[in-house]
C-alpha cells in the first residue's frame, strides 16, 4: 500500500497544484469555478493532452520528438482534404491515425537504424513535414470540412459532453494500459532507463523505438483530427509551437527528460493544469503577454519540484537500505 502511494507521489502533487490553482482563480473570479468554465478547461486540454500522451512514450524512452507540431499540420491538411473529398468520417480517422504512425515511424527509423540524435532527427523532420503540408495545400487553407466529420470527432452527446473529451479519455486509458501493463510498455521504460542493459536483456531496441515514435505520433494524429473537427479548416500553418506545449504537459506531469520515468496519468493532469492556468489567467484579466511568462514559470517550477522529489525519494531509499541491513 505504501509503495503504491510512493509511486503516485508525483501525480498527487500535480493534482494538489491543480486544486490549489482552481481555488485561487475561483477566489479571484468566481466564474472560473462555474461548471461551464471547468468543462471548457477540460475541452481545451484535449489537444495538448492527446499530443502529450504520445510524447510521454517518447520521453519515457529517453527521446524527444520536435516534429509533432508540423506532423499535426500535415495530418490536418491530409485529413481535411480527404474529408472534403467525401471520404466517410471513420475511414478518415483511421487513415489519419495510420499516417501519424508512419510519420512517427520515419522518426523512429532515423533514430534507431541511422542512429541520429532524437533532437536532430526530429528537428529535421519538423521542417520536412511542415514543408510537405504547404506543398499539399499549396499554402491555402482547406475550408468547409463536412459537418458529418466534425460531429464525429467533436460533436455533443448525452446532453453536453463533447465527443473529443471521450476520445481523449479513451486514448488516455489505452496509452496508460499500453505503458503500464504490457511488455512493450516495460520495454519503453527499460530503454529509457538504460538502453544497453535493455539490449543485453534481449529487448529489440530498433523495432521498439520505431514503435515508440510511431505509436507516439498517433496521439498527435488524433489531436489533429479533433482540431479539424473543432475548426472545420485544415491549414499548413497550424500548430506552430505545439510540440513545446506537448512537452510541457509531459514535463509538468513528472516525466524525467533523461528517460525511464513518467506516466500517462501525470501527463493528463499536466495537460489539464496547463490549460487551467491559461484559462485562469484570462478569466483573472491578466494580459496575454504576461500569460507567456506565467506558463514558462510553471514549467520551470514543475521541473524543480521533480528534482526535489527525486532527492527526497533518494533519502527514503537510503532509509530503506539501512533497514535492509538490519533485517
Amino acid at each position, binding site marked *: 500500500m505504501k509503495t503504491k502511494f510512493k*509511486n503516485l507521489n508525483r501525480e498527487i502533487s500535480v493534482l494538489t497544484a491543480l486544486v490549489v490553482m482552481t481555488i485561487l482563480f475561483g477566489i479571484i473570479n468566481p466564474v472560473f469555478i462555474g461548471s461551464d468554465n471547468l468543462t471548457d478547461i477540460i475541452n481545451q486540454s484535449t489537444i495538448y493532452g492527446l499530443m502529450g500522451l504520445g510524447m510521454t512514450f517518447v520521453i519515457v524512452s529517453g527521446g524527444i520528438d520536435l516534429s509533432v507540431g508540423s506532423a499535426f499540420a500535415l495530418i490536418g491538411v491530409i485529413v481535411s482534404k480527404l474529408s472534403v473529398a467525401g471520404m466517410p468520417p471513420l475511414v478518415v480517422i483511421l487513415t489519419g491515425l495510420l499516417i501519424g504512425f508512419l510519420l512517427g515511424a520515419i522518426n523512429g527509423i532515423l533514430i534507431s537504424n541511422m542512429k541520429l540524435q532524437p533532437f536532430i532527427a526530429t528537428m529535421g523532420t519538423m521542417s520536412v513535414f511542415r514543408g510537405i503540408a504547404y506543398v499539399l495545400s499549396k499554402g491555402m487553407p482547406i475550408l468547409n470540412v463536412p459537418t458529418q466529420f466534425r460531429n464525429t470527432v467533436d460533436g455533443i452527446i448525452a446532453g453536453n459532453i463533447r465527443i473529443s473529451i471521450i476520445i481523449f479519455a479513451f486514448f488516455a486509458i489505452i496509452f496508460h494500459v499500453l505503458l503500464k501493463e504490457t511488455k512493450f510498455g516495460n520495454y519503453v521504460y527499460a530503454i529509457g*532507463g538504460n538502453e544497453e542493459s535493455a539490449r543485453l536483456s534481449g*529487448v529489440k531496441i530498433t523495432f521498439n523505438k520505431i514503435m515508440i515514435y510511431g505509436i507516439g505520433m498517433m496521439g498527435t494524429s488524433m489531436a489533429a483530427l479533433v482540431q479539424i473537427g473543432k475548426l472545420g479548416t485544415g491549414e499548413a500553418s497550424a500548430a506552430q509551437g505545439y510540440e513545446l506545449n506537448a512537452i510541457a504537459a509531459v514535463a509538468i506531469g513528472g516525466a524525467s527528460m533523461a528517460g*525511464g520515468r513518467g506516466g500517462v496519468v501525470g501527463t493528463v493532469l499536466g495537460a489539464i493544469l496547463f490549460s487551467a492556468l491559461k484559462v485562469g489567467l484570462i478569466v483573472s484579466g491578466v494580459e496575454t503577454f504576461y500569460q507567456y511568462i506565467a506558463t514558462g514559470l510553471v514549467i520551470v517550477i514543475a521541473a524543480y519540484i521533480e528534482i526535489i522529489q527525486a532527492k527526497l525519494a533518494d533519502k527514503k*531509499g537510503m532509509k530503506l537500505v539501512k533497514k535492509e541491513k538490519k533485517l
Partner: protein
Amino acid sequence: MGKQQEYALEIMDVKKSFYENLVLDGVSFELKPGEILGFLGANGAGKSTLMKIITGVYKMDSGMIKINGNQVSGEQISKIRENSVAMVYQEFSLIPSMTVTENLFLGSELKKHGLIDEKRQELEAKNMFKEFGIDINPSVAVEELSIGNQQLVEIVKALMKKPLVLIMDEPTASLANNEINLLFKFMRKLKQNGISIILITHHMQEVLEVCDRVIVLREGKVVMNRITDELCIDTMVEAMVGKAILSKDVLQKKGINNTQRVLLEINNLYWQSKLNNINFKVHYGEVVGIVGLLGSGRTELLKCLYGLLTPTKGTIIFDNKQIEHKLTPEKAIKIGMCYVPENRRKNGIVAIHSVENNMLMSIWNRILNYGIINKKISMQKVYDMVKNIKIKCVNKDQEIRNLSGGNQQKVVFAKGLLINPKLMILDDPTVGVDVEAKESIVKIIREFTNRGSAVLLVSSEFDQLEKICDRILILKEGSVKKELQYGRDCINEITISEAVQLN
C-alpha cells in the same frame, strides 16, 4: 604542509548514524606518514561512510579527526581537509575527449593575461609525470590511453593539490595484471615521497602485496588492525565475514568425461584481428573458465557467442544446432543463453527501476495474458527468486540502485536464471562485490550446473576460477593457448597465473 607529525591522520572514536541506524560505531585508527593502509570490509560495513566523513562529504555525529596533528573541526574543517586529503573514486572523473593536461588542470587552470597558459600547464604536467616515473604523454586525449594509464592520470590529478593522505577506492577493479603492477609501483613511489595511502579493496592478494597494515571494518567497528606480515588471506576473510565460510560441499567439482553431451562447440572462430582460430567445446553440467589478459580477446569471444559481435569466420554449434543466421541477444536468449555483463551499472541494470522490473526484463513475453502482464505470475517469480538466491531487498518495488553491489549482481543473475538457460555466459561476475556475495554467486553457479546446465565464465579473479571451474582455457592473442582440466592438471591461483603469463 607544515612540519612532520607522528601521524598523518588520526581517527578517534568516530560515530555516525543515518536515521536510527548506527553505521559507524566508534571507529579509531591512525595512519603514519608514508604508510599504505589496506582497508577491508564487506559491502555495507561502513567503509564508504567513513571515507566520506574523512573527505568531509558527511558530518560525523561524534568523535575527532586530526590531520597532521591538527584537529579538524568547526569552520576550517573543509579547508584543511580539502588541502590534505584527496580521494580517487572507483569511477573515473576524467573527461575522455580532453587531453591529459587539460584534465589535470580542470578547475584550477594556470592563467596568463586571463587566458589559459597551455605551455606552462603542459610543462608542469610533464614534470609531475617525470617525478613519479610515469610514461604518459600529457598532450594526448585521455580516451586514447589504456585503462591502466587513465587510472594513473586520475591519481596524478588527485595529487595536484599535494595531499598528505590519498584515499583510493578499488583502484584495481578495471585493471589488468600488468597494469596493477604498474599501479603498485606508483603507490610505493608515493610512499617514498611521504604520502600516506588508504587502499580500499576487495582483493586480499593485493593487500598482502602492497599494504603495510590492514584494517578490517565490520558492522561499523574496527575488528582487525594488524601489520600485513602477520596475516594470511583466511584470517582477513574471517575477520570480514565474522565466521568461517566456504562450505566445501557446494563446490564439488566434476572431472568431465568424454561421454558427456556437448552443449556448445566452437570451430575455427575468427573476429577481425582480435580472435584467431578459436576451438573448444563446453559440455552439459560443466563450468568452463576463460582467462587472459586485457586484450586477449576474452570479452570479444563472449560477445560473439551472445550475438553482440558477428564473427568474421567460423561456426558455433549450440545444442546440436549450428547457428546459421546473424545472432542477436534476443535470439541468443531464445535458444537458451543468458549473459551477465562485465559492467553491472552500465550494462547490467536499470538503476532507477525496481527490483521486479530489472529481474523480469528478459521474460516479459513469457508472462503475458492476452498481451497484458500477469501480475500474479510476475510477483511469484520475483518472490521465488528473492527467496532462492537470498536477495536482500525491502520489497519488489525497491529501486535497484538502493541495493548493495552484491545484491544488485544477484538480481542480474536472477534475470538470467529466469530465462531458464542452458548456458550462462558470465563476464567477470564477482568484480566489485563483497566476499559474502561472492560466495553466494559461486553457489548459484554451482547449483545451476548441478542441474545439468553449463557456464562459460570469464574472470580476472583467479581464486574464484580455482574454486568453481571444471576446466580453464587460457586465452592469448585471440586463441586458446592452453587448457587446464580438473582431475588432470593442478588448478590453483599459481598455476593459472603461470599459464596466463606464459609466453
